[in-house]
């Protein structure tokens, strides 16, 4: 007799995710390699003459939740869009290529992991679709410094949206068209908000804390991304049955 899946609680989702990773250790290995690649690119970017924005971890006295609509790995050195203006061609190519390599590696790892765990087939189209959405989110990302009065309500809205669209990454990776993804995600998460909020809290906090480790923070963040994929997979499977 097949063991029955427990109810959709935060603990059950985390346990389910952990169970799935133990059964598929290759996924942990893939995200570990992605983390090493990202840490290596961080190292290269620290030494080159193109400006970077450094990740502010717990050393800066801040704690935040790092849980994205798509699978999120912290780049300790990222490139502000404004730093690309007036770059000499060779440094523009270098910088964009490095960003595409690590972004592409994250897309491939995410699509591979979801399709493996959900027993689906990875396609070039779904990977491209996932990559396009990630690019749009990256370009549209804004850093709002609004103080507590405005920041708290904005933060609550942001967490609410992350919770309601938490399955978006899994749906995109397994071939759901973009326009259907958000609607389906909204319907799937109805009634499961608090459970998913717990997931966002645990995984998002772990992501921030592990990413704060000097030099190899991206490896820790990438391993958290594997947990992200596994937990969302557990949620999608729960709500699909």
């Amino acid at each position, binding site marked *: 007799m097949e063991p029955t899946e427990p109810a959709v609680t935060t603990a059950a989702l985390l346990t389910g995710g952990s169970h799935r990773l133990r059964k598929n250790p290759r996924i942990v290995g893939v995200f570990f390699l992605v983390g090493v690649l990202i840490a290596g690119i961080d190292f290269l970017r620290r030494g080159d*003459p193109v400006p970077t924005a450094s990740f502010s971890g717990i050393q800066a006295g801040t704690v935040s939740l790092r849980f994205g609509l798509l699978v999120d790995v912290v780049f300790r050195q990222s490139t502000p869009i*404004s*730093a690309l*203006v*007036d770059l000499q061609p060779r440094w523009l190519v270098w910088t964009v290529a490095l960003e595409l390599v690590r972004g592409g590696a994250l897309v491939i790892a995410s699509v591979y992991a979801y399709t493996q765990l959900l027993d689906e087939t990875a396609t070039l189209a779904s990977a491209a679709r996932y990559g396009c959405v990630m690019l749009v989110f990256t370009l549209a990302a804004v850093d709002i410094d609004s103080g507590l009065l405005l920041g708290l309500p904005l933060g609550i809205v942001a967490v609410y949206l992350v919770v309601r669209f938490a399955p978006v990454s899994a749906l995109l990776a397994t071939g759901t068209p973009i326009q259907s993804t958000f609607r389906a995600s909204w319907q799937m998460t109805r009634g499961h908000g608090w459970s998913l909020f717990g997931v966002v809290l645990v995984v998002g906090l772990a992501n921030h804390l592990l990413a704060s480790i000097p030099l190899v923070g991206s490896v820790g963040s990438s391993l958290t991304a594997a947990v992200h994929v596994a937990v969302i997979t557990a949620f999608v499977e729960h709500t699909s049955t």
Partner: protein
Amino acid sequence: MAQRDPRGTSYASRSDGPVSEVAIRWKHPLDTGVLAFSYPSPVVADGIVYAVGQETLGVDARSGEKRFRRSYGAGVSPAVGPARAYRTPTVAVPSTRGVTALHGHGGHTIGGQAIAATRWTTTSDQDTTLINDSSPRTSPVATDELILAYIEGALTALETSSGNTRWTEATAFTRPAVHDGVAYVGLGPGYILGAIDLETGSVQRFEPADSFIRSVTVSEGQLLVATDDALLGVSPNGAVNWRFDDERYHGWGESCLAAANGTAYTGISTAAGSALIAIDTADGSLEWESPVSVSQSGKFEPPAVTDEMIYVPTEGGPLVGIDQKTGDISWQFQDGETSTWSPVAISRDALYAVSDETLYALEEA
């Protein structure tokens, strides 16, 4: 940058500024703030004049065409230096919160809105209070792909292209003067002359005098060190070559030197008020004294020098051009009611200066 070059000479060797009479080539409005009692010198680099006040303005040096206007204000001049990864220089604008580096041509403007103007920034979120005012009083210096700037009180070497910090020196307190890969600077507790290796940040310390060091300028391989009570000629190894402490002059701490062709120039306090003096840097002897009252804002404003002329803002009066050989006034310039002038920046055949919410380009009439 302020005082023109990394050595702080204010000497424009290949320039021919106005000699006998001046006219306005162009002028632009500049928001300098209503309570400004002095103005930072404009800076000319890569064919663009950069002027700061409550904003940063970039103007084509020759045509006067406005290149950009950005909302980054500063109380001291910016430093402009070449950036390895970029096609345009980096403009380092210091503020109470750190340094903001702008793209040399101001980034882009879309629909009247400035976008992507900044290249990098060291700014912190810490607010400045009236009690703890950390406003930079020393202009940053651009040299050897580095910006040397005071950030939260510490002299910091920032890579011009990336903004990465190479080293910091917490006890430095004067404008660095750079010579042969070394930045010379006054160090705490005050009477130490420091030689900081630009590459490594390692410091060699000298004690050329027993009074406070107020400024360092490099002229033809020699350091001109103004202390509280004298001007010293010092070798890069710390040996004192000569000392100028003529009793007719006092307040060396407020002096600010320019140096060219074996002569140093500075405003200095006298029994009658103040004067502009020229000192032979070979032996520290007085060449001439001019009765010109150089504008003073805490310190005397630095003169700007070409091979023929010296240009200085006068106290509450006009901008003047002075014959370098004799110290005689060749011309005076005022535009209507203008009363306070910034130090002058020189490029080719034009002078650039700020007065009364206006950036001026002046040329031979």
